[in-house]
């Protein structure tokens, strides 16, 4: 934790993650394996903010966000660090008080998990899901609850009749919208979403993004969401954090990160985005993503980094404040997005 400096914090933060380490620890037939999927991550999220987490596949995005949501099951375990929420003066330490955490779910905090098209129970009608998840938090009568849910669906652009359907009767896009409706019906303070749009086709994706942004503005909620798709970040995130091999390597306001990436990996991510009127062939990053069971020493990006120097191989660069954000690189700022 010594080598992590806090970002400038406002008093208006909703979520503070400090020195978080979460590993998959497996022991099977005498073979031990430890995958360091979240390795010393600290970040802060403000009220009313949309924070995007980017990074290539298997870099640990889902693991990070699951750990934040208190949604981990063995073999994934929190090894060190803390996750603390502050819902308008009411503090909640996710890993210190499981009881309070349970009470806060859906009321203050909801989670849209990866592959959320399959989160609805295949053998029950959709209305039961709303009842099971939300009814007890509302403190209203059955019939008032029903009309509240119908209203909510209506606003989201879903026909309330879907409540009487079974999941298999609905399209993927509809189910995705339904899970978003389910996660927002209690108007929580904080929404955690893992790849909420990945499985959708582009048009539906636009719709769903607009929907999320709209809900966030109306309810004044904060959102942390994950996607490997940089264009989605560009569209809705206020700030983004870049994850590489289980570590946060750069963070900053979306516009700044896109304009002036400080970390060579971020620069690569941005330069490989397709641009209108530009047919130049993009250079692929050499090498493979690191194996998190046995990550490279020093800066984990060094085997693939065009700027790597000797120091990078032996010493891990700390995440330090630089300009409007934070970056972890010995040669921060020396690259420019092509």
């Amino acid at each position, binding site marked *: 934790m010594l080598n992590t400096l806090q970002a400038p914090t406002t008093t208006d933060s909703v979520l503070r993650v400090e020195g978080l380490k979460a590993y*998959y620890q*497996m022991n*099977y*037939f*005498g073979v031990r*394996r430890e*995958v360091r999927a979240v390795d010393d991550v600290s970040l802060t999220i403000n009220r009313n903010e949309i924070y995007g987490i980017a990074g290539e596949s298997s870099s640990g995005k889902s693991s990070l966000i699951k750990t934040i949501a208190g949604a981990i099951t063995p*073999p994934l375990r929190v090894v060190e660090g803390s996750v603390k929420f502050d819902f308008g003066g009411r503090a909640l330490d996710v890993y210190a008080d499981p009881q309070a955490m349970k009470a806060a779910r859906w009321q203050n905090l909801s989670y849209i998990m990866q592959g959320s098209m399959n989160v609805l129970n295949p053998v029950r009608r959709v209305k039961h899901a709303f009842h099971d998840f939300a009814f007890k938090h509302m403190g209203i009568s059955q019939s008032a609850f029903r009309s509240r849910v119908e209203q909510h669906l209506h606003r989201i652009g879903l026909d309330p009749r879907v409540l009487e359907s079974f999941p298999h009767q609905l399209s993927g896009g509809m189910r995705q919208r339904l899970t978003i409706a389910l996660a927002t019906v209690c108007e929580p303070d904080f929404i955690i979403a893992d790849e909420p749009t990945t499985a959708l086709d582009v048009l539906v994706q636009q719709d769903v993004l607009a929907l999320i942004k709209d809900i966030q503005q109306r309810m004044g909620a904060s959102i942390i969401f994950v996607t490997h798709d940089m264009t989605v970040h560009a569209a809705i995130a206020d700030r983004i954090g870049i994850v590489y091999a289980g570590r946060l390597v750069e963070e900053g306001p979306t516009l700044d990160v896109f304009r002036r990436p400080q970390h060579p990996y971020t620069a690569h991510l941005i330069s490989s985005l397709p641009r209108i009127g530009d047919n130049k062939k993009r250079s692929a990053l050499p090498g493979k993503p690191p194996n998190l069971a046995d990550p490279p020493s020093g800066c984990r990006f060094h085997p693939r980094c065009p700027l790597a120097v000797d120091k990078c191989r032996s010493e891990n660069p700390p995440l330090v404040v630089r300009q409007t954000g934070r970056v972890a690189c010995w040669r921060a700022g020396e690259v420019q997005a092509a």
Partner: protein
Amino acid sequence: MFKILRDMLRYNVEFAIGFVLTLSIFLFALAHFWAPLPDTAIYLLPPDMPPSAQYWFGTTSRGQDVLWQMSSAIWNTMLFGLTVTVLSRLLAVAVGMLSGYLGGRWDQALMTLNDTMIALPNIPILLLVYFVMRDSMSWPVLAATAALLGWNYDARLIRSVTLSLRNREFTRHAVFAGMSVPQILVRQHLPYVMPVIFFTAMNNLIWAIGLEVTLSVLGFSDINRPTIGGMIYWANQHQAIIAGIWWWIAFPIIAIVLLFLGLFLLAISVNEYIDPRSRLSRMGA
């Protein structure tokens, strides 16, 4: 293979117990080759002797040593079981892999046939076969009949594994490289199907031994060839329970229960080891 065995023995208690049980029963059965008297001989020993230092498990009303009878009986029973298992594996693998690999109409036709066979009650059909064959019935014929009836559950399992291999990269490569269907199935797919075959074989063996016991208890087999069920059959014929010759029935029952327990423990621990789902989640995919 040897390393897997060693790891399983070391880290899986169920496997270790099952392995030891099965192995000791097997060794006990093997001992019948050194039996002092031929196993079909009757009335050579004093009948109805309770367990003693001389006759550890006592003697039968037919003047046989229960210990040596059991040794032969387990051997014969296991031999029957293994024959059924091997024969029915051949059928299950052939039908399952072909069905899974060919897919489409073939798959549909083979699986419809398969489900039809599953819905037929085995025991009445076996009994009918025994009834019409009567004296020309020998244990290999019975084993072949049982094998014909005992492959369909497993063919389904094997099919589903093959089905998942069908669209893999290496299958397409093999097709382009001009390998024939049998070649692809045997060289490319069989190694992946092997664990399922092994697991179903354990269960099938248990089923086949149970079948043998059942049929010979009723006297529907060669009653002069000692088997576990046959021993109980003779004990019943001589009213051993009423006459108080409990050892004639108790020891065969204990032996067969131990054998079943051993095989069953092997089957479930092997299943746990090869179950792709639990294995994947442990290895972290």
